[in-house]
């Protein structure tokens, strides 16, 4: 028996309900696994939803080749531990064109290595539904999402034409060419995710905990140098600082925060006390107004 609060129990049951509704109604679902804290909770809930049966769908990781090394190690460990079926996809065309976060603006890099890559992987696998860990509290356009978020042919999100979604009834009948993004964590907040990780004693990538890491400061953002591909500006030298991450993505585009939170309890405390929103550290979201909505329209989850 777990010692979840009544609120987390409610959220957990709702997410399990969503997983089961999707698995029952869609022909070929896949779980978009991006290794971070939300994916960790997502995967845990999926295992609960179908236990003692095996997960009735594979995991998909879109690897831009710029993820933190700790993330990839964690991913591989998780897959081994739970005996999961993992698909790793990289946009090789983008790689051949050397699309990278240093030479290209975040919008171009994200479009090619994440959005296009995701579309390629979903099409290649013939998936009609993809679970994602997006939460409505993350960002303004995500606050507008349905739990079953329908995408027209080409994975386009049409925010003006979302399907009504009443009560607990999730209608998964697809029209021609349509696919669905399914968001079981829609009603979770960042605080809920951390409290759940703490109470369920889930393992997360060590980058979420404060440690001394090599940091350079750019435009006021702390960038941790994760490998030798870092492009230093003249005179720039990494300095060891006590930092951690609130969200994880591609290392050149994900800013760290200064923190002394070295364990789960202090991370929970810090999160609940935070005065700045979570995605403030996501450099790709600041590229232009409505950046997330643009990405979603083009097929990003």
């Amino acid at each position, binding site marked *: *028996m*777990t010692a979840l609060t009544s*609120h987390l129990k*409610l959220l*957990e*049951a*709702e997410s*399990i*309900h969503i997983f*089961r*509704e999707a*698995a*029952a109604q869609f022909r070929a679902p896949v779980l978009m696994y991006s290794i971070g804290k939300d994916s960790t909770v997502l995967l845990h809930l999926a*295992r*609960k*939803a*179908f*236990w*003692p*049966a095996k997960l009735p769908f594979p995991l998909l990781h879109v690897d831009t080749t710029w993820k933190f090394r700790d993330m990839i190690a964690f991913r591989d460990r998780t897959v081994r531990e739970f005996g999961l079926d993992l698909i790793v996809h990289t946009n090789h065309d983008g790689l051949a064109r050397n699309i990278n976060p240093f030479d290209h603006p975040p919008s171009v890099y994200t479009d090619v290595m994440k959005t296009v890559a995701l579309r390629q992987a979903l099409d290649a696998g013939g998936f009609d539904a993809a679970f994602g860990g997006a939460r*409505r*509290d993350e*960002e*303004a*356009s995500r*606050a*507008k999402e*349905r739990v079953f978020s329908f995408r027209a042919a080409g994975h386009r999100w049409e*925010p*003006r034409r*979302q*399907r*009504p979604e*009443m*009560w*607990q*009834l999730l*209608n998964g*009948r697809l*029209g*021609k060419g*349509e696919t669905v993004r399914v968001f079981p964590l*829609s*009603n979770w*907040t960042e605080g809920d995710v951390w409290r759940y990780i703490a109470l369920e004693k889930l393992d997360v990538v060590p980058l979420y905990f404060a440690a001394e890491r090599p940091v350079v400061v750019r435009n006021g953002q702390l960038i941790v140098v994760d490998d030798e591909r870092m492009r230093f500006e003249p005179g720039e030298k990494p300095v060891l600082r006590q930092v951690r991450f609130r969200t994880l993505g591609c290392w050149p585009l994900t800013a760290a925060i200064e923190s*002394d*939170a070295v364990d789960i309890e*202090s991370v929970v*405390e*810090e999160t*609940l*006390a*935070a*005065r*700045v*929103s979570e995605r*403030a550290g996501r450099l790709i979201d600041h590229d232009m*107004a*409505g950046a997330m*909505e643009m990405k979603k329209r083009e097929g990003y989850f």
Partner: protein
Amino acid sequence: MHVAALREEVEAKAAAARATYGGALLRLLTCGSVDDGKSTLIGRLLWDAAGVSEDQRAAVALASHNRAVNGEKIDFSLLLDGLQAEREQGITIDIAWRYFETRARRFIIIDSPGHEQYTRNMATGASHADLAILLVDARHGAKRQTRRHAAICDLVGIKKVVLAVNKMDEVGWSEARYREIEADFRGMAGSFNFAQVTIVPVAALTGDNVVSRSTEMSWYAGPTLLDYLEAVDPEAVQTDTPFRMPVQLVLRAAGDFRGYAGTVTSGRIKTGERIVDARSGLGATLRRISTMDGDRSFAAKGDAVTLVLDTDLDISRGAVLSEVPRRPTNADVIETRLVWLSETPFDPEVGYLLRTATDLTPVTSISVSALVDFETLAATPAHACSMNDIADCRILLGRPAAIDLFRDLPLTGNFVLVSAIDGATVAGGVITWAQAGAPQVGDNVLVLNRELLARGVCADLGESPADLAEFHRRAQEVAALLRSVGVPVLIEI
């Protein structure tokens, strides 16, 4: 680590406050006609009750300055209108979900659009809410769209409504004007099943009576909006409701594991108790309640569990497991009240499917009997319905489905109508009356009883659970075939 220490103290205080208030989650809808100031009101609530982070504050302050709709003031609606089209046009298109906590409780705020063309989004939001704040502009009072929204709140089962009389600053904080709107709304609310109606005069732009008490309206002695929202009880907890668990899927695993996965929608169940599949009438004893955290001895409303039975009922997704004494109706005719959501009007020639809890049932026919008139709120005879209408309909089903009445058990008494052509959700509604086997026993009804079936169709079947399941399956099939050529049939086995 002084930040953490400070936080601990704050958390402890918050926890103590929540304990005194009960602290239950409140899902809150804001609705009303366009331009009555919904997004501004909620933005103000978030801003003043500290639900906004520093970077969001800065971004909104900057964007407000660029837009300058209120001169130098903050445009609070920017906190909610998250779509580009919304920001460009200055309107709300789809519902926005916001999450925040105060010292007293957690809130989910569902901000819904006022424009008539986006009513389907408002209906989506309303169906997830415990309580609705209905806004009116003090200068105009309740409009047609206000009444439509109130009717939709009523339809989806909201029992508590707050009328926020907004823009009181624009009518010189006039008590007389407020009393006029109050009387009008109390009269109108009588047409609905609301259990509690509260009326608060506010000015969202200045914040009067939203979080802080207004100094302009000393004649008002009631609570501020936030005071009320922090204290209100989210739902009347129903006790002693019958057990229901709609089956979502059948889980099979190693060691002959076979369990029915679903969420309990009402009541509770213990291991060792008898349960029945309402559609086939087959019963079994509950052997295990299985979860990844270990087996449990009981499950109650809201729990997502997997039930293992002592005998193998041949049932699948769509079945409703229920307690034996108080079962759902195995209905093939239902009376409903629904809100039509699709841009394409109701067409009796088009195929529809009825989606109840986890079941999808083909619809034989739908006939509209009345529409709600949004001027008088009376039901008036009608035969057609189109987008944003609220209609009373009789629906004949292609096969019986396990159905409860919405007023008794909302989660097994609600439905959406699905287009058989493109899968779209065209309407959402509630079941107000249900009847098993359209015809009554009596004239010209063929009663399919055990003897009749055992004589031939089921002559090869014995008494084993598998055979009994097959017996019931054949009975349903025979009935369906006969009904399809117009023979009224009643199954009595």
